[in-house]
């Protein structure tokens, strides 16, 4: 016969075992959500490697709360590097007062990017600090980090579940920036299950309040493999401003090489 003491002891043991089971289960669940989030992101990245290089023209349409608009025209040339971040040249055409200004960037998966700016009126090449990830790009609702290439090492991941976005069954993955200079605590990214294309991103500011939503539309496939959206819209929920992006003239494997990305090419980029 069990005495009272033994009964209490057994019960306690039972309770402890049950509790640790549930903690263990939760931990396992969390770990598997992290692993699943990473897995989805890796799959998305792996579907978008091997394009070698590309060039495109981008138009930005900035809108303020009152509906006033301002246009930016930008040309980009990007060289894919498999062992590091990409190299890119960005050339500004509009607004007219910054025409001819160009920007050279050697991005790195880990650590700060190397960036140079060419100012045509002074004929001056300036190395600039790449710490400014959270600042607005040309007065738009896009920050520098929003426009940089996606690298696995830049985030920690968490799979949140599935949802239908743009009529497409999608994964919902939470991404936590590793870089302490990021302007965000987290992003929630919706990737469609069929092609792993980013359909939508919610950005949460440093106070973890919803700041912006980015929506991609009109995806087209290039070289029978790579998907690129024709347009995207970033809406700032806090300021009421928005920026619309449109891409034209997407070209891949144009023959760009490492030698097309240096201070000399920066100075004569058009």
């Amino acid at each position, binding site marked *: 016969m069990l005495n009272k003491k033994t009964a209490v002891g057994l019960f306690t043991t039972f309770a402890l075992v049950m509790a640790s089971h549930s903690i263990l289960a939760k931990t396992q669940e969390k770990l598997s959500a992290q692993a699943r989030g990473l897995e989805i992101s890796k799959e998305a990245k792996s579907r978008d490697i091997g394009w070698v290089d590309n060039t495109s023209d981008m138009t930005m349409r*900035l809108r*303020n709360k009152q509906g*006033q608009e*301002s*246009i930016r025209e930008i040309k980009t040339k990007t060289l894919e590097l498999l062992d590091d971040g990409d190299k890119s040249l960005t050339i500004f055409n*509009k*607004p*007219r*007062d*910054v*025409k*001819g200004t160009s920007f050279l960037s050697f991005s790195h998966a880990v650590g*700060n990017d*190397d960036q140079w700016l060419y100012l045509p009126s*002074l*004929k*001056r*090449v*300036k*190395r*600039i*600090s790449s*710490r*400014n990830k*959270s*600042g*607005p790009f*040309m*007065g738009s609702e896009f920050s520098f980090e929003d426009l940089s290439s996606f690298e696995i090492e830049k985030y920690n991941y968490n799979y949140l579940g599935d949802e239908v976005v743009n009529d497409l069954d999608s994964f919902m993955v939470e991404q936590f920036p590793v870089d302490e*200079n990021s*302007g965000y605590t987290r992003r929630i990214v919706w990737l469609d299950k069929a092609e792993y294309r980013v359909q939508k991103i919610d950005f949460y500011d440093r106070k973890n309040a919803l700041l912006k939503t980015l929506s991609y539309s009109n995806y087209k496939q290039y070289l029978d493999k790579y998907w690129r959206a024709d347009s995207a819209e970033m809406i700032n929920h806090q300021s009421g401003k928005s920026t619309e992006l449109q891409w034209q003239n997407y070209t891949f494997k144009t023959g760009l*090489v490492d*030698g097309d990305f*240096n*201070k*000399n*090419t920066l100075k*004569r980029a*058009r």
Partner: protein
Amino acid sequence: MSIVKKIKPLLVALAINSIVQPQVNADEFELSGKVGYEQRYFAEESQYQNQLSRSQASIFFEPELYWEWDEGNSSVTFKPYYRYDEFDAERSHGDIRELSYVYASRDWELRAGIRKEFWGVTEFQHLVDVINQTDGVEDTDGEDKLGQLMLNLSFVRDWGIVDLYLLPGFRERTFVGKEGRLRGPLVVDSKNVSYQSSAEDKHLDFAARWSHSIGVFDIGSYWFHGTNRDPILSLSTTEPDRSPSLQQHYNQMDQLGLDVQATIDDWLWKFETIYRTTDDEDFWAAQAGFEYTYVGVFDTNADLGLLVEYGWDSRGEGDKNSSGASIQNDIFFGSRLAFNDMQSSEMLVGFGADVEHSAFSFIMEANRRFGESVKISLDIRVMQSSEPSDALYSLKSDDHAQLAIEYYF
């Protein structure tokens, strides 16, 4: 030197290219540029005889014509410039800022014609920047340059970029005329110019520069041999019957230069130094400092940059026997506020002071885009000195505000 003489080598280069590639067809032509109106208002009446009173207006025009062909590997740029000033006949002037041909191959480039080349990293003084002559009538900051005729070969290697320059022909500095403000008591005579070299303004100058980026460092180093861009100004004795003026003398110089910037997180550390040797004097000078940027200052989208620089020159302040250097023991503070808004609003405040005596200059520059193509800027400059030997002393009545409206096309 006439324009025809200046563009002759360019035409030769163009001719050679058209022989090498008979089917030259301009694949792309682009016309852009700016036109502007500028109004200066001086806080005090003029100090010297003949100077304009308080208000000075001018207009300027700077179109840029660009042609490219051969998939952009060959291009020609033509950028003429003209400013009309309502009072100052010297400030009403034209220049060919650029008329050059560029041929770009995979790892080398040939650039021939009239061009501008900038070297250096610091903000308050451009010590190492030596290729182009200063267009001194444009503004007091010395950042406007006259086009320089050159033949420039540039090689890109794993260990850096090497630039070789042949510079035929020299441009004399432009100086404010007798009607203009922002000058000393004596006008610099643009016709009374002498040279050390018997070739005068046709001396063939030479420069070689190496530059490279290594990790956080951007380094450049060069040797320049040729006509000194800084004239020696002295009281004219040749025409005693005319009112006294300053004559310009350009000697020959050899100069070694080094510029280094370290870009470490939010800090830019900057250093420039030159060693110049001429028949008259040898000296070295340096400018060093930093720029720190607060990103997203006060929880806004704005960036606030803080700049501190120090300038030193071995010639010191100058005395009866030597003109010395205007920046020889001077400290500079600046603050740049970029609002990062749709109109790219910016404000820069700068303060320079001589450490040894009370002379200082203050500048405030603010600019903003209006609509898509108009830019308006407002500059305010205050200069003060209690030391008659200081260069700023002669400008102490020339505090002014300058409003510029520019239209870009």
